[in-house]
């Protein structure tokens, strides 16, 4: 059956874009229609319940944090973009192996579409699918209202039949879930926020971190390092005396002090060397260094110092 040849039984009008089983209305005469293509995935979309202003307001809750530069917080966001991405789901009715026979109903969800640069894996898909109002999939209408990202893998590939048991029924579907993508452009790049267009919940956002925070941290770290380095000159006799009384533990501490100082220096270096940004959602946020390699030079130094320290301690003790 070629889906391109589907027509309305009342007026003969074509049903363009219908790819699978769906509840649709005829474009020509408005008749309510049911399309049933056994074996093909059901295509639906979720009606965006939140508007662009609500999306900007949700993003603003994150962008107006205390640790974000005030200039960035004041800056107006670009016009939000509505993004529809494909989510695959399967409802299965399975008879588990064994006696007596027990039938299980299962429901699985997976992201089927990939949108470059948008961390959709952070979205709470089950909630988005539960809360949203499902409407028949109308590709033309979706394209008119936003960017549509089709599935990279179909539900058949994402949810292979389980190895054990017998599958009695299977309902595969592709649901196009709407998200608002809100962006602020700065000199250094852009910062985006992803808002669930069904519930209005902020799913993920990024923002620069104010430099004032780093100045304070720098001052504390410099004082801490200076104090740690100055200590052996001022009170080395007292320290050595104390450590000598501790026997083996004293020796361990004596050799661990340089490693701890190097670790502190490495942490300070990472904190001061890299520009940070804050990322998170409505409930939590984490700080992340930008362009930081897996291991910086000071971090490698910490590793080597620890290795040498442990080697010395193993030889001595």
């Amino acid at each position, binding site marked *: 059956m070629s889906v391109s040849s589907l027509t309305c*039984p009342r007026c003969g009008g074509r049903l363009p874009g219908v790819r699978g089983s769906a509840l649709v209305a005829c474009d020509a005469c408005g008749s*309510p229609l*049911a399309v*049933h293509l*056994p074996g093909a995935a059901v295509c639906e979309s979720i009606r965006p319940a939140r508007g662009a202003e609500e999306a900007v307001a949700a993003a603003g809750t994150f962008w107006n944090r205390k640790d974000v530069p005030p200039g960035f917080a004041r800056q107006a966001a670009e016009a939000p973009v509505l993004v529809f991405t494909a989510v695959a789901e399967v*409802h299965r009715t399975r008879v588990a192996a064994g006696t007596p*026979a027990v*039938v299980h109903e299962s429901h699985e969800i997976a992201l089927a579409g990939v949108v470059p640069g948008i961390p959709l894996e952070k979205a709470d898909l089950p909630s988005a699918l539960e809360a949203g109002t499902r409407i028949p999939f109308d590709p033309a209408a979706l394209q008119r209202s936003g960017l549509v990202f089709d599935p990279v893998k179909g539900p058949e590939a994402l949810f292979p039949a389980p190895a054990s048991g017998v599958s009695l*029924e299977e309902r595969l579907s592709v649901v196009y879930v709407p998200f608002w993508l809100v962006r602020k452009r700065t000199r250094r790049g852009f910062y985006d926020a992803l808002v669930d267009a069904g519930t209005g919940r902020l799913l993920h956002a990024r923002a620069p971190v104010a430099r004032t925070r780093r100045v304070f941290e720098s001052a504390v770290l410099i004082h801490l390092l200076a104090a740690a380095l100055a200590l052996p000159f001022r009170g080395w006799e007292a320290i050595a005396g104390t450590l000598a009384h501790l026997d083996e533990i004293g020796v361990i501490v004596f050799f661990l002090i340089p490693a701890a100082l190097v670790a502190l220096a490495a942490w300070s270096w990472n904190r001061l060397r890299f520009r940070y940004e804050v990322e998170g959602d409505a409930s939590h946020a984490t700080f992340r260094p930008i362009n930081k390699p897996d291991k910086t030079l000071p971090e490698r130094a910490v590793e080597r110092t620890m290795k040498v320290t442990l080697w010395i301690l193993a030889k001595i003790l």
Partner: protein
Amino acid sequence: MTYVALRLCRTCGAAVDAWAGVAWVTCRECPAAWDLFTASPSKLVTYRPAREIVPKGPVARLPFFLFVKRNGAGESVVWIPAYRATGARSDSDVASILTRKGHRPALVEAPLGCALARGPREALALFDAIHPADEDGAPAEQTLVSLPVVLTGGSLHEPVSDAWIADAGVRPPVLTRAARS
């Protein structure tokens, strides 16, 4: 095989409740369920219990296939859900409790009031899987019935079995129908 059909009742012309991907639809106005995708649409008469226990609260309906098998002097009843509930097990769901209770209400013809997640053929396959055929192999009589459920918080409560189901996991969703009633 027809692939596109009007979502209208073939008897009264009223709108039907349907779930995409399921061939069977139910009329909102008359006691009929239809498979609109056969060459000549197949019909099933739908029923509700003559007397319903309905506690206070927003009411929705859940569809079931009631299998009645006569053997000798008596008869046995088996309830098979015509909806799907995520995570449900056939040994502990509403239908299994109704089956264990031997619930056999007097029925009257009435609109079902909900869409179906499976048709009679799928229900029969489920029936055969859960209750393997008896030695006599006599076919069971199959009736499409809906029972009222009360929406309480995020759960649906079926008063006869006194069982609860998470509303969010029920397919087709019944919340809209509860809100409508």
